[in-house]
């Protein structure tokens, strides 16, 4: 059945290049999370603002992010924005697409976390003479962070996996992109992509474990 000689040493020789790509992958994932968190906080604010227009913007963002493929969102950034004369590089399109996706999911996560904290917590804080903003910052926010933390780390893992989609818009510096380039030159598809799969797996596990350790240190109660 297998009339094929595996050439693993070729793939091993390429390991340094693949690891360089892995760094770019991590960089994009981290940046997209940071941008996503900032936008998600804004969207959550929009939704609670009581302003009909802002609330509609936030809801549309969340629905589009959750109900269309991530790849579609990246295509939108890469091809769709061309209609406005905006031509983004593969790197920027990928980052924009994932950040858009992250923001939508995280906004929903934040809203859920906020709803999970009983009003009585704010009420107690106010009864001690705290102004509303202080009560939010000292009492509501820290508790919200704990509830939102685990889903947010899942989103981080998702962001890492999503970076692989960049190859479809011509990204060639991240892990998937470099793997694809090596593959195109050598046609050792299975070996190179198996190698990439192992690296993605290890990154995903490392991020999950790091997040768990961080949560254990941060949330002692």
């Amino acid at each position, binding site marked *: *059945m*297998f*009339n*094929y000689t595996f050439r693993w040493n070729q793939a091993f020789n390429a390991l340094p290049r693949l690891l360089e790509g892995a760094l770019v992958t991590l960089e994009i994932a981290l940046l997209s999370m940071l941008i996503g968190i900032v936008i998600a906080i804004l969207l959550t604010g929009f939704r609670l603002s009581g302003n009909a227009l802002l609330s509609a913007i936030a809801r549309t963002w969340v*629905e*589009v992010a*959750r*109900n*269309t*493929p*991530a*790849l*579609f969102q990246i*295509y*939108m950034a890469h*091809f*769709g*924005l*061309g*209609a*406005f004369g905006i031509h983004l590089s593969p790197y920027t399109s990928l980052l924009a697409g994932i950040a858009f996706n992250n923001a939508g999911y995280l906004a929903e996560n934040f809203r859920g976390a906020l709803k999970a904290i009983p009003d009585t917590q704010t009420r107690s804080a106010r009864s001690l003479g705290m102004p509303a903003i202080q009560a939010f910052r000292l009492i509501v926010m820290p508790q919200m962070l704990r509830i939102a933390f685990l889903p947010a780390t899942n989103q981080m*893992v998702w962001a890492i*996996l*999503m*970076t*692989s*989609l960049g*190859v*479809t818009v011509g990204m060639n510096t991240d892990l*998937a992109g470099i*793997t694809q380039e090596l593959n195109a030159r050598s046609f050792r*598809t*299975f070996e190179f*992509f*198996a190698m*990439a*799969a192992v690296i*993605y*797996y290890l990154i*995903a*596990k490392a991020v999950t474990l790091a997040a768990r350790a961080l949560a254990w240190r941060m949330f002692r109660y």
Partner: protein
Amino acid sequence: MFDTALTWNDMAFLAQGAWMTLMVTAVAVVAGTVMGIVFGVLRYQAGPYWSLPLTFVLDIFRSVPLLIQLVLGNAFQSIARLGWDPFTTSCVILSLYTAAYCTEIVRGGIEAVPPTTRRAARSLGMTWRQDMMHIVAPLATRVSLPAWIGLTLGVLKDSSLVLWLGLIELLRASQILVTRLQEPLFILLICGAIYFLISFPIARLGGYLEKRWSPND
């Protein structure tokens, strides 16, 4: 509003793409759910220790990008000379991917059935099979349905990645039209709207069932 070169033929082309998306999704969800139920029951019955190998393998499908899985699956079928066409390869990989998630949902559902309820069933003289069929299955289904609908929606969206193996599904069809007509925004908006039209009702159904079937009603 839009001055477009898009013809009815092009719309039919998009519809064909959407049909391909639906087909791949349907095969993956059906096959993945069947496998997920088998693996889920197996994982539950074997306990965390003995099911470790299964857990590990399924976890790989959830920790490696689907795109990489598709390329690997395709390379594998070519090395093994299985002679699968891209549609078959896509369906196989996407089914395993779905099964990996579905297993967790099924296991969670079974674990949510209170042991006391099961003991009551067994004390009435029901066999393991009867207990599973008449007590556990209906209760676990209620608990897991919202998550399962979420998974279906996820697979619908993730099925877009099969374009990398050359299948012309909805997104690829849109991309082909974009290249030909140079109207990226308009065509992609139609594409997004179609995704939205398919997934939004399913999401709503999920939300409705979640409310109606909440375990303590």
